[in-house]
């Protein structure tokens, strides 16, 4: 099945048409076609159409709040869906990043928000004092401003915003336990979505993409390009202040530790590289094949909350086979991805 792709998001086209904005030429034709597709989609997916009652068109439902340097959530509302830019860079970056994430999920995976039923997307920015983190608190995304020496604003990277929202998607799907291997898979899926949001927004092919997570967060003078590299885990930074990127790129180097919930942000390097290998072997837009396979695996009811790498690898292979057929190049690419990082899928 071919995912729908267009430069102008369908929900935006619908809105233009509804608002009576005159469309001409190609745009008008595109709008007509896109809206027809949307109608067909609804006819095919009655459960989703029901979920949209009261919402004439699917689209993100964003609210960005401002914690104003404190730690009380949610903070003061700074921008609601449809509001013009606020002028506060962090508020507007969060708003745009949430939009880019919603659009990727909808256009590539036909997923309507985190729960596939149009759940609102709340975020809080300016959290804490020089706070060096962004996190998903189970309800909302929360972004710090960074300390100003190592890190700047955590909203500056679309892949980080996509990563945080993806934790919400995982919560509504496989709900992988946040510890050890299932925890590293939870982190891995968040990185995959983060990378795909950035690539989708820029219409970047797998072979053109940076595969970096959190590029642009480091302040000048820090010797590093990003938080993580999916293409080459362990190479994102090497700095006197930060030390060296500790991510392993192969299962032989799996890190056993008490810290970081059992190394969830370290060992995610292993499946990250497997995904990168599969996506670049296939080429083209990564969300169209490798991304879809991973998304199918995430929703497979047979995937345990406590899945280890081998179990998840087997689920992705089954997903590739179900969607693209046994012996397809997609199945081969996924198999060689896992082989490339030393993970032997469960049989």
């Amino acid at each position, binding site marked *: 099945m071919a995912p729908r792709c267009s430069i102008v998001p369908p929900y935006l086209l619908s809105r233009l048409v509804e608002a009576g904005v005159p469309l001409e030429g190609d745009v008008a034709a595109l709008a007509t076609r896109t809206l027809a597709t949307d109608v067909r989609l609804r006819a095919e997916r009655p459960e989703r159409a029901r979920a949209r009652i009261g919402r004439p068109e699917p689209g993100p439902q964003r609210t960005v709040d401002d914690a104003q340097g404190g730690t009380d959530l949610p903070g003061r509302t700074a921008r609601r869906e449809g509001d013009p830019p606020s002028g506060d860079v962090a508020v507007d970056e969060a708003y745009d990043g949430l939009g880019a994430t919603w659009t990727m999920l909808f256009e590539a995976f036909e997923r309507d928000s985190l729960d596939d039923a149009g759940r609102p997307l709340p975020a809080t920015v300016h959290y804490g004092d020089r706070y060096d983190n962004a996190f998903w608190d189970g309800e909302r995304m929360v972004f710090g401003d960074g300390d100003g020496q190592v*890190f700047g604003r955590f909203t500056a990277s679309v892949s980080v915003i996509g990563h945080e929202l993806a934790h919400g998607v995982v919560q509504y799907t496989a709900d992988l336990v*946040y510890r050890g291997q299932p925890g590293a898979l939870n982190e891995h899926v968040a990185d995959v979505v983060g990378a795909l949001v950035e690539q989708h927004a820029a219409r970047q092919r797998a072979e053109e993409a940076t595969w970096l997570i959190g590029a642009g967060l480091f302040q000048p003078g820090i010797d590093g390009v990003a938080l*993580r590299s999916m293409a080459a885990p362990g190479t994102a930074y090497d700095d006197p202040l930060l030390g060296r990127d500790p991510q392993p790129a192969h299962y032989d180097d799996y890190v056993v530790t008490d810290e970081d919930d059992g190394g969830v942000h370290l060992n995610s390097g292993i499946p990250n590289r497997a995904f990168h290998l599969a996506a670049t072997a296939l080429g083209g837009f990564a969300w169209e094949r490798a991304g879809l396979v991973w998304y199918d695996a995430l929703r497979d009811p047979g995937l345990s909350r406590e899945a280890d790498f081998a179990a998840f690898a087997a689920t992705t292979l089954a997903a590739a086979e179900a969607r693209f057929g046994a012996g397809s190049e997609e199945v081969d690419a996924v198999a060689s991805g896992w082989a490339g990082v030393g993970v032997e899928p469960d049989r």
Partner: protein
Amino acid sequence: MSRTGRVPGAAEAREVGPVRIAVSRSGGVAGMVRRAEVDTDGLDDPAPWLSLADRAVPLPEPPAPGRARDAFTWTIELGDHRAVLPDRAVTGPLRDLAERTLAHGRSPGR
């Protein structure tokens, strides 16, 4: 108990005695670990540290796993006490002590 006439920090310092404080803050979306430690024995002015340490014990029990993702994880050693705690469980004097240790302590192994 009346504290009249006592310097709070100094009084608590005598009650607690010298202590080694070791803190690691791991996780977060960046997945970077920061570690630092302080030995109050070697400090010119241990009183503020000991006052915080005194009020930070007993260390809290780790709460049941929550839904937060990419939140920091703290490993805190305070003398004979040790706890691994999610960010939301590190509050009050314990938080002050943990952040102060990261800011002013020495890096282990350096």
